[in-house]
């Protein structure tokens, strides 16, 4: 009976941890199979331990080329979407203008539409215009679908900003430009950074829209898709594992730095109370 009670009290925790395991299981499999030495062309069955793929991650033709192409597209798409999205977010929060409802739905709709619909309709536009599919059509598409997410992220931050801070800056004789650069932008920066990170992640990992609008250009997700039909090299798992480890380490370092800064700030204010 006590065991049943114990189980009852921890039911949520156990169920939650099981879900977490479900979420992480594929990552574990990807990591383990990056040390595999498969017999055939496909890396789905465990054969024997080997670090061969880790010693030569670019050993498969086209893999690292597709990776750098994806990084390049993601960087430019992030830059474009962050710039355009931040501008829209500021206009939405700070100004009154006509047709606000229409603007809001134009920003919301791309997030509420299945990717395949956006991908297919954009392709009909490019086909009608006779555009050559490749780097530029991918970049245009990525900026398009990342834009809305940046707007949402930046808007949330700018909306929670205390408008009195800017008023204070102006009371202290800062011009509009100075106020923007020295007060508004630093406060909005975390929102802009969050939007940019999201845009980078979305663009880098996008497959469906790229699949439609890439022509014969091969990004990293396109490479993985192609290899699922032809044969999956172990190097794919190596790249996947490396990406996972690098990202987790970066997040942990950023968190540690943030914690230390907070603590130091707390100490400072403690020593010299204003």
């Amino acid at each position: 009976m006590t065991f049943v009670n114990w189980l009852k009290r921890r039911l949520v925790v156990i169920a939650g941890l099981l879900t977490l395991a479900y979420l992480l299981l594929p990552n574990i499999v990807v990591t383990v199979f990056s040390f595999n030495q498969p017999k055939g062309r496909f890396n789905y069955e465990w054969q024997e331990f080997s670090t061969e793929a880790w010693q030569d991650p670019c050993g498969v033709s086209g893999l690292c080329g597709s990776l750098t192409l994806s990084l390049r597209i993601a960087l430019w798409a992030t830059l474009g979407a962050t710039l355009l999205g931040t501008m829209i977010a500021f206009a939405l929060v700070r100004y009154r203008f006509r047709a606000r409802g229409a603007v809001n739905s134009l920003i919301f709709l791309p997030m509420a539409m299945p990717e395949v619909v956006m991908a297919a309709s954009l392709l009909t536009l490019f086909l009608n215009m006779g555009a050559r599919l490749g780097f530029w059509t991918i970049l245009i598409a990525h900026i398009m679908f990342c834009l809305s997410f940046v707007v949402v992220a930046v808007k949330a931050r700018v909306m929670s900003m205390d408008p009195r801070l800017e008023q204070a800056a102006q009371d202290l004789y800062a011009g509009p430009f100075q106020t923007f650069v020295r007060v508004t932008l630093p406060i909005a920066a975390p929102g802009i950074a969050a939007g940019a990170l999201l845009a980078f992640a979305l663009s880098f990992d996008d497959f469906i829209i790229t699949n439609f609008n890439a022509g014969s250009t091969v990004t990293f997700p396109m490479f993985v898709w192609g290899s699922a039909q032809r044969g999956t090299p172990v190097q794919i798992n190596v790249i996947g594992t490396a990406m996972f480890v690098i990202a987790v380490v970066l997040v942990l370092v950023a968190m540690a730095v943030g914690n230390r800064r907070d603590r130091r700030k707390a100490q400072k204010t403690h020593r010299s109370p204003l």
Partner: protein
Amino acid sequence: MTTVAEAPPRAPAPETEPPRKRGRWTPYLLLVPGLLWLLVFFALPVIYQASTSVQTGSLEEGYEVTWHFATYWDALSEYWPQFVRSVLYAASATVLCLLLGYPLAYLIAFRAGRWRNLIMILVIAPFFTSFLIRTLAWKTILADGGPVVGALDTLHVLDVTAWLGWTVGDRVLATPLAVVCGLTYNFLPFMILPLYTSLERIDPRLHEAANDLYARPSTTFRKVTFPLSMPGVVSGTLLTFIPATGDYVNADLLGSTDTRMVGNVIQSQFLRILDYPTAAALSFILMAAILFMVMFYIRRSGTEDLV
């Protein structure tokens, strides 16, 4: 996504607002580049697609708008099984995501304590590995004769699922179950994050109050926690259902020809068969169906502030 919600209109406060010289054109200058981008590369394509769907012709001779609406009828009568399947699979995946995601979101919001940040990172971390690679990993996990399938077989779970038509024989791979499992896995974080956001906002004193009023934990959950988490449930289900309906990656990698979804049809019509009018018509129907379902759902769930 609760952040999508528009802020309540702030009351104009002319006394606290300084008499700033603001250009009347500033908001438009800020809006125009981004909105133009969305108009040209999002809205205009939808119109082009609508026009393509009523064209006839061939790749060699070119296409012409002939208002050939029969394409819609032909597309629907030929591909309705794929449409039904898409909605069915996406709905199953959404329900599974809710059932699996809720405990985890609850755990992070109320029970995790100092582990909260770590669990949060672990929920987001899979995103850092390409989702295609992770989906391919399910091929290994669900492999024929593998430990998972073996365990399900010994427990006679496979007999039940086969009887329900979810699996075929003693296989899981290349069956509806595998596709739904992949969809659930891929969109689970999109359910957990909005759920967590709305759960975290709940004032813990409400739980104490319910407890003080002699509500049992289950009653507290039913009458306090769950109703207050409804915004998260609504946005989570939308964020799961919409992309899952249009997905073709899981059906392609984990399924078979019997599990093709409407996304697979659109993809192959557009990129392999090159029958543009049919593909455009299918994509247009999918868009209309999703918008209709989303509108209906938002109305019914009474959270209009989502849009």
